[in-house]
């Protein structure tokens, strides 16, 4: 009896390897993810402090400077109407990040709620949600995005809205599966036995235990949303000038003469989209390795 108590105490006092500390260690071991995280942090800072970092007003038109190549006053040159490319690049990070975070935020919220409810309550609720998931997943998504954004008018808000309302099925599906898996765990059953209301069980017992795959999915989702916004803006169906977005900065390069002779206009924004998305994807990969105990 005494020994048991002593053992128990020793166990408690031993350096505890919590899930969190293990996950942090595994994440730090993933070098690409680490580099990615640093770059993402830098881009976030760039977006937040854009007004202080940008050397010029991103929307200031100066025809005298149009199509000028890089110089000491304008490191990345100027675009067709003489706006400073570097300043537009810095401000463009705001568009990309807000689309990424807000669109994913919207569909995470929808997906989490529907997925949890479907998985926890089962029955006809589950039936309804699952059929809805199937239906939306079989939508030709890009076609729908193009039509809605093209017809409702291209704007940042509409893009966020459309991506937000089309992205949730994948999340709902993951969350539902995870909820089904933990629903019969002892800690959930004990809360139920103690008479906790369903809302409390969902929020306090289930949600914290199913977040790992959701976080990973969200990370990849941010990268995907940034790519889609860039693509739409490139086609002229996204963020409209004069607002700078990395995608619409490449729009002019559809003309072969600009493509050939003025690379400073289209190479930097293209590279920025690439760097931002690959960094976020690496972070997502690192998170998956860190949060998925099966892998180790």
């Amino acid at each position, binding site marked *: 009896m005494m020994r048991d108590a002593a053992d128990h105490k020793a166990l408690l006092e031993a350096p505890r390897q919590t899930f969190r500390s293990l996950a942090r260690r595994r994440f730090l071991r993933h070098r*690409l993810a680490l580099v990615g995280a640093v770059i993402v942090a830098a881009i976030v800072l760039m977006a937040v402090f854009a007004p202080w970092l940008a050397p010029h007003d991103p929307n200031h038109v100066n025809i005298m400077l149009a199509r000028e190549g890089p110089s000491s006053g304008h490191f990345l040159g100027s675009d067709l109407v003489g706006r400073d490319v570097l300043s537009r690049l810095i401000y463009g990070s705001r568009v990309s990040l807000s689309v990424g975070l807000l669109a994913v935020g919207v569909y995470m919220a929808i997906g989490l709620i529907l997925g949890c409810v479907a998985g926890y309550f089962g029955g006809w609720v589950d039936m309804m949600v699952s059929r809805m998931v199937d239906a939306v997943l079989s939508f030709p998504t890009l076609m729908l995005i*193009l039509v809605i954004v093209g017809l409702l008018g291209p704007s940042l808000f509409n893009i966020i809205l459309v991506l937000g309302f089309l992205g949730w099925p994948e999340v709902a599906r993951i969350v539902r599966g995870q909820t089904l898996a933990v629903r019969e765990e002892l800690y959930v059953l004990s809360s139920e036995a103690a008479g906790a209301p369903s809302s409390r069980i969902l929020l306090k017992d289930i949600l914290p235990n199913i977040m790992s795959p959701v976080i990973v999915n969200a990370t990849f989702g941010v990268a995907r949303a940034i790519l889609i916004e860039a693509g739409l803006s*490139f*086609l002229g169906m996204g963020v409209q000038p004069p607002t700078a977005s990395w995608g619409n900065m490449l729009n002019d390069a*559809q003309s072969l003469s600009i*493509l050939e002779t003025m690379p400073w206009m289209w190479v930097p924004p*293209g590279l920025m989209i690439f760097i931002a998305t690959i960094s976020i994807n690496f972070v997502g990969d690192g998170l998956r390795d860190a949060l998925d105990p099966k892998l180790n």
Partner: protein
Amino acid sequence: MHTFIIRRFLISIPVILLITMIMYLIVNLAPGDPIDMLVGQQALTPSEIEQIRISLGLNEPIHQRYLKWLGQLARGNLGFSYLDHQPVLDRIAERLVPTFSLMFFVILVSYITAVPIGVISAIRQYTWIDYLATALAFSGISFPNFFSGLVGIYFFSLVLKWLPTGGLETIGQGFSMVDRLYHLLLPGLVLAFREMGVLVRYTRSSMLDVIRQDYVRTARAGGLSEWKVILHHALRNALLPLITMLGLSIPRLFAGVVIIEQIFQWPGMGRLAIEAILSRDYPVLMGLTLCTAVLVLMGNLLADILYGVADPRIRLSGKR
């Protein structure tokens, strides 16, 4: 098996109806009038405009127009383009071959390159070759299609002058298979780069799963050479999920096609979609929606069926 296919097929019908209904509502209730686009700069009297509206059927209430559209559809008629009054079916049909040849090329190239890279990446996990493959795959996934397209045109067409900057074929030369392939190469490779990235990651994780299975360990313990273990025992099972990917990749491919066709002036369905949106050519837009919805659903169905054929553990019975 047959009941499963029939069941899935029957479930697809209401889904397609739902999609067309939603799209019809969005398309027709969106601000912006196709008449404005048609009339353009011409000065027409209000009564003349009303005439056009009636001739296009735009004066009727929306639910009647939708039902009419469905009725036509049942008779195999997708309506007529607002722009040139050609049957929508013809407009789409002439775009099918360019888009499908592009997609086919992309699937072929991406699978041929991705499977070996993914497999090697998995069996040499955490070595430099794995890191290289991972970096390559993530570059493919993260590179915006339009940027890689522009870079491709810049280097291969403008600087090196090896490949054409766009188009389906050399104008005024008539049909030639070699010429078509020559034009297909750059847009195809650009799209395949992304697809390859996705598939490498998929092959790798699927292979990693399989390598850890007991039967692979048993094969190894039985003294088979590593090569044989990988080829005969692991690879076959690792490739199963990839078969599913074939069907599920259609929506992603279609998304890529829209942008690539725009950059390379490829006269396919993606370009048609953009043209139709810009000119508010609603019948063409609805036709394309239906077409892509059917393609996506067929892809899903194909994925399920192929998976059932390839993996006997999955029983495709009527109940599920």
